């Protein structure tokens, strides 16, 4: 599980926040939680060798702040395409597309996107995203579970 985003930019910090929450809760066996921060294309290397990857990132989905959903890499890939190739700031879309093009995309990749309220400079999640955090964590565990069988410990 890799959390992406910058905790200095409000709700963009949701990825790293989920990593922290998962670590506090205890990780299912065989699962590693990685704070990917602003890894950019480093994400390609972070995913390498994993059987399954769940990425958590802030995602503008036109939904209510704190809303979240899991989707396959194809939607994120489309986002990468729309972006062009500013690879310094490459996020999930560009990195996934690159991994795919290089033939090193892990066989099972899911993205859990969380709708941010704000991503301006400032430390701390909005109330909405903060309140959604436990549900996001559960959703991430479910996605991991549907991928890795019965390795989930329920709360």
């Amino acid at each position, binding site marked *: 599980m890799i959390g992406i985003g910058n905790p200095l930019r409000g709700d963009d910090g949701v990825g790293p926040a989920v990593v922290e929450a998962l670590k506090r809760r205890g990780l299912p066996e065989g699962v590693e939680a990685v704070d990917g921060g602003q890894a950019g294309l480093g994400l390609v290397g972070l995913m390498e060798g994993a059987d399954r990857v769940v990425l958590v990132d802030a995602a503008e989905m036109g939904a209510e702040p704190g809303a979240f959903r899991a989707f396959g890499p194809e939607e994120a890939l489309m986002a990468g395409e729309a972006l062009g190739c500013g690879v310094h*700031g490459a996020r999930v879309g560009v990195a996934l597309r690159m991994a795919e093009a290089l033939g090193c995309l892990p066989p099972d990749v899911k993205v859990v996107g969380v709708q941010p309220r704000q991503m301006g400079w*400032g430390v701390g999640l909005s109330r909405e995203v903060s309140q959604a955090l436990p549900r996001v964590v559960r959703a991430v565990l479910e996605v991991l579970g549907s991928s890795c069988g019965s390795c989930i410990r329920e709360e």
Partner: protein
Amino acid sequence: MSGVNVRVEVEHLTRVEGHGNIVLDVKNGEIKKLEWTVVEAPRLFEAMLRGRRWDEVHHIACRICGICSVSHTCASLRATEAAMDIPISDQTLKLRKLIFHGEMIQSHVLHVYLLAAPDLLGVGSVFPLIQTHREVVLRAMRMKKLANDISHVIGGRHVHPISLIPGGFAALPKREALEGLRERLEACKADLEATVDLVKALKLPDFERETEYVSLRMPEEYAFYEGLIYSSDAGPAPVEHYREVTNEFVVPHSTAKHARWHRNSYMVGALARVNNNYGMLRPEAKAAAEAMGFKAPCFNPFMNNVAQVVETAHCVYDAIAVLDELLQKGLQQEAFKVEPKAGRGIGVVEAPRGILFHDYEYGDDGRIVRANCIIPTNQNHESIEDDFRALVPKILDRPQDEVRHTLEMLVRAYDPCISCSTHYLDVTFI
């Protein structure tokens, strides 16, 4: 050149992070407008650091950038340690230098291979590059992964290292992990050679503009982590005088601050460092420079790409040397205790893109009262414009598209990373 009309407008230049625009307007052979515009959101790091405790400041600083997080972490730690007179051990110094080498390698490899090379190999971006030069991109990713793994082993995270703290390390790497890195760095020498071969075959635009080069300098080593400020025009200056170096000023067409010292502008980054400190490079890096036709001092800003490869060679070989020293001695758990106190400290390091300043003032409670950060990219903006002004008259006879492309390449050669100071590229999922 009278009668020539050229209009170039590049909005949101690709393959640089953040929002930068190029505007060129030539009427009748006369340059009416020539600007490098950076659309920068207000910089709030200083505000975010204010009120923060001495032992959390560097964790915030390390999130400023995903490419230069080690640099920001170390500049921040050094500012805090200077403010509170916190000593560090030789072992800590070596480990920090090692993680610094990792950052330099990953940043330079990313820029040379994925941002600059597509121009030079005649493809539009990294994706067609994967089609035409798959092995080249795989090599780049292999080198970048190794460099990020250095950060993971030494700093506890692949990016945004977490175990570097004021006075030392919260956790030390395991011996086997260090040995593993050493082995992979050894294997990386072949990739390095292939990189030199690739770059020496590239044709860079032929353009020179001699300017003032500013970097850190150390008497006996190639300076990344510490040193005095050094100008190719005026020699050394103490770090306490950094504001007299940067002289930040505002220009009407850009929201990013510009900098100047002894001339209208100065250049920072790999080219400035190699120019100022060539003699301190490892012999393997000098050999790489010679193989690529790089001769210091070099006044061609496009050669910044080549200087980055020279530094990559230095870092690979020096990282092996540092690892050997650490492995030979064995890592010791070191006890250290910090007594927070009031004071001011300045931390200066060489980030991959150039000299980086963090300046903190702490109150009695060990919390930041005032902070100032000056990033390398902002120090280069005026130099980019001066290059534009020197270059454009020489290429005005060329087709408009070629003029535009050459200007884009010039900006990319500087490897600007505006993300330090501007709106982050917000990804929209559909």
